[in-house]
């Protein structure tokens, strides 16, 4: 869940009233937000770097607010305030308008070289904007929040914002060999080639995370103006030439990416949020994007979509009985302008460009429920009549667990993931013989494979408990995983029972007795002739007293163990 940090006083000023922390927390809860933390810059720095460094930092109270991952329209102060004000019916949701410029429309021409690396681009212009320090900071911060969330760390979409007055269109979005790209990037004093930049940014704590997106590609994406000035090399860095400042009045925004839908959403969010500060509030100047095939479109889309939902559907899905008029009012409070039409049971809902998360009627139903107040909904029990069944394997497991404890053995719970060494080398087996499934991206050796036997976990438990009085009698009933090409995923779980007896004296007869007891519990008689069980020496090393095993657990003691694969269907099939 993304966290947005806003200055409390600025927030209250924009909301037109103050709240106590508890009141604001309550409002957040109701709206589906979470007031995660109340802090200040000073407190943050002092927590992370100590009191000394925090000495000069700001005391201004910050609210850190958790926002649902699909509400990109709430990722900045402007959006939060608009959402809450509409929710509280203090303002009407603004209508966002795309307008054509008086003069020539700004053009962004996409060349076909971009196809293989970052094929999509959209653009728009914010005209006559008025920034303050706080507004400017919020503008930058929103881009960062979008980059981290919907843009998937710039892999899907990257945003570039430029001072239009320093540039001259039309703009060209193309891709070039890194050695052929040369410009002065943001916050540097001289020009570098793209190759040099990629090297420099390897040690940049912020930018190094994005290099991999284009690093090994033959061509890098780049945007030029008509004079050959580099606007940006997405998704890494903008040019210094067109950098925006608090004083910038006209902003050219470009979003490039590999996901066209998301690029359009990101552009819509930025312009809807910050057109608030334009001379003509909530209007955005269109830009034309020319595609490699010669066709062109204007952006931002700022599309308003109409959905029709029946009032009784909303009532039925939520479990309430509201009039269509009331439901329309509830939805309008959620930034979804709605009215009752037709037979009086139909609600027409207008989905604004800020609400890209509304993709189905169920999203509208949820918003109606939120506005109604989840905690005002009458709780009822469904009349669903069902007979419960246990899963047979788990039922048997439960029964056996209790009787294993009754037999004096103590249950342990160990990890299903472990190292290759645990299931192979330490047991004297070759890893290929284990038929284990292998994890491709383990962060440490502890997560290399799924266990193929419960034994390592039991032995490690003994090793960690050598101070406990002897004997240790331990068991575990749980799943192991083996590769199996007969299943749809190519691997299969098996339920194992594994028990160990650990003492100063050999105790084979004890583990043997436990096996006999388990067989008794499973109603399997001894003796092959009776269709029962026999114990035979195993070829494998793990089924006999093995000094290697004892070494694993770290004691000088003798240790016996048993493993038993529970195959209940096998017992049944034999049908003694």
């Amino acid at each position, binding site marked *: 869940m993304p966290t947005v940090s806003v200055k409390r006083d600025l927030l209250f000023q924009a909301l037109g009233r103050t709240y106590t922390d508890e009141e604001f927390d309550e409002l957040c809860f109701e709206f589906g937000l*979470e007031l995660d933390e109340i802090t200040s810059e000073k407190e943050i720095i002092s927590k992370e770097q100590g009191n000394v460094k925090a000495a000069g930092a700001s005391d201004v109270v910050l609210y850190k607010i958790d926002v*649902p*991952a*699909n509400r990109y329209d709430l990722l900045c102060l402007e959006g939060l305030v608009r959402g809450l004000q509409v929710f509280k019916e203090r303002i009407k949701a603004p209508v966002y308008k795309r307008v054509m410029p008086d003069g020539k429309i700004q053009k962004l021409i996409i060349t076909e070289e971009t196809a293989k690396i970052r094929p999509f681009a959209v653009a728009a212009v914010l005209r006559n904007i008025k920034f303050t320090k706080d507004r400017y900071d919020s503008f930058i911060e929103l881009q960062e929040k979008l980059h981290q969330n919907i843009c*998937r760390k710039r892999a899907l979409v990257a945003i570039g914002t430029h001072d239009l007055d320093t540039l001259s269109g039309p703009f060209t979005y193309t891709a070039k060999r890194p050695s052929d790209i040369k410009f002065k990037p943001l916050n540097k004093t001289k020009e570098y080639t793209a190759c040099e930049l990629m090297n420099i940014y390897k040690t940049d704590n912020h930018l190094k995370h994005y290099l991999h997106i284009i690093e090994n590609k033959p061509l890098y994406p780049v945007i030029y103006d008509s004079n050959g000035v580099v606007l940006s090399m997405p998704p890494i860095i903008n040019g210094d030439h067109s950098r925006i400042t608090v004083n910038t009045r006209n902003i050219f925004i470009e979003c490039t990416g590999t*996901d066209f839908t*998301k690029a359009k959403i990101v552009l819509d969010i930025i312009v809807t949020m910050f057109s608030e500060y334009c001379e003509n509030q909530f209007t955005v100047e269109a830009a034309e994007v020319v595609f490699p095939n010669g066709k062109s479109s204007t952006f931002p889309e700022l599309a308003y979509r109409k959905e029709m939902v029946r009032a009784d559907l909303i009532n*039925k*899905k939520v*479990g309430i009985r509201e009039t269509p008029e009331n439901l329309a009012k509830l939805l309008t409070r959620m930034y979804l302008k709605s009215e009752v039409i037709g037979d009086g049971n139909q609600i027409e809902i207008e989905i604004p460009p800020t609400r890209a998360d509304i*993709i*189905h009627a*169920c999203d509208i*139903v*949820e918003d109606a429920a*939120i506005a109604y107040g*989840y905690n005002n*909904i009458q*709780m*009822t*029990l*469904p009349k*669903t*009549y*069902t*007979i*419960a069944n*246990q*899963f047979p394997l*788990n039922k048997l497991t439960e029964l056996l*667990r*209790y009787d294993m*404890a009754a*037999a004096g053995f103590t*249950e*342990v*719970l*160990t*990890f299903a*993931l472990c190292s290759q060494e645990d299931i192979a080398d330490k047991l004297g087996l070759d890893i290929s013989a284990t038929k284990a*499934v*292998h*994890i491709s*991206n383990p*962060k440490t050796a502890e*997560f290399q494979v*799924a266990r193929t036997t419960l034994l390592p*976990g039991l032995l*490690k438990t003994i090793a*960690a408990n050598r101070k406990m009085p002897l004997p240790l009698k331990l068991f575990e009933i749980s799943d192991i995983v083996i*590769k199996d*090409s007969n*299943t*749809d*995923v*190519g*691997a*299969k*779980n098996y*339920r194992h029972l594994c028990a160990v007896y650990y003492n100063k004296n050999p105790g084979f007869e004890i583990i043997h007795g436990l096996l006999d007891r388990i067989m008794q519990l499973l109603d399997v008689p001894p003796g092959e002739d009776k269709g029962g069980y026999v114990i035979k020496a195993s070829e494998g090393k793990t089924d006999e007293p093995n000094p290697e095993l004892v070494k694993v657990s770290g004691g000088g003691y003798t240790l016996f163990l048993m493993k038993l694969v529970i195959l209940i269907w096998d017992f049944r099939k034999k049908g003694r």
Partner: protein
Amino acid sequence: PQWLLAGPIIEAELRSTKRWELTAEGEEIAREGSHEARVFRSIPPEGLAQSELMRLPSGKVGFSKAMSNKWIRVDKSAADGPRVFRVVDSMEDEVQRRLQLVQGGQAEKLGEKERSELRKRKLLAEVTLKTYWVSKGSAFSTSISKQETELSPEMISSGSWRDRPFKPYNFLAHGVLPDSGHLHPLLKVRSQFRQIFLEMGFTEMPTYNFIESSFWNFDALFQPQQHPARDQHDTFFLRDPAEALQLPMDYVQRVKRTHSQGGYGSQGYKYTWKLDEARKNLLRTHTTSASARALYRLAQKKPFTPVKYFSIDRVFRNETLDATHLAEFHQIEGVVADHGLTLGHLMGVLREFFTKLGITQLRFKPAYNPYTEPSMEVFSYHQGLKKWVEVGNSGVFRPEMLLPMGLPENVSVIAWGLSLERPTMIKYGINNIRDLVGHKVNLQMVYDSPLCRLDAEPRPPPTQEAA
């Protein structure tokens, strides 16, 4: 043992005194002089070869002591090897004098420093003498009458028990704990959750497949292929077997269409859906993948029959580990599928479920989950922490998930989930998850853990005084 003492027949008071005694070597020195004095005396005026001196019984120890006392010197330039000469004409053998003082019972005349020096040389030893002063006890008697500790069959048959004195039981002593096995606390809680679901008429879903395809874990749940949960940083993917061998291709096509183009009343996500991505095998990140399989199987059965399902099993996350997060944990999941289920029904079922856990104060917060809409987080008021804490997550499965499976349009599926570890840690007062799960767990904790009675009053947290 305490319970054998039949009563205070006698009182015994322990008195201990300390005194200084000479060791065997100390005795010898008191008698014959210190080693250094003996060395000094053995050197004639014309000196003595050092090699010869060293052969004397006191030679080695005495030589170095006499040297440091500056009683003797060594002439290394002598013709036939180093030779030792007296430096002074006479000396006082302080060591012998002091030891003789101690021998004479006047150890107190020596200073603390002098005594400890002699003790270091192992000439003196401090001896503690323990004595008991015995006097008559309150139940003093000169005749012995043994109190019986146990009632025997003979006493009963002869009736002699009527006249015998019996020793009273000592209830303050600890009893002998029975030898027994123990169940693991987390799995005791698991048993209780199973029990609750069964009491509520929920059928257990099969979950015995830790390995799952991305398709069932994500795509089937309408979780888009670029979703951050599908990142290498969050999910364990498999190198071998890297890909699922079979997928239900008809259904896969419907899922693909819903993601990339929409349908079933949905706009879809409008991106290029890739089969390769769906085939990628992983360690399931939630048991909802098993729920998806169960619902898909349900959808293939015609006509539709309402169901209530549950599961409790392991899930895996490639996350940063801390005191409350491990790479694997148990997820509890409940699912109800029926015609016309509402959000109010979901809340009603949750209320019943949490009541059985002993949690009655509930509150619901709007939330976002990729595969449920509406979604709600469940909060309960924690008396100890004096605040609302999240106890579970829930919602109504999206139509984009259910309809491609083939479920009828008017069937709704409500679901909720929580972790098994969190309520267990709260229940047993455990702060670090490593003290509960895994091989490093202290077996004593397993031995000592009480029954799991979720609906009983929880033990009050220890106060400052108790701690």
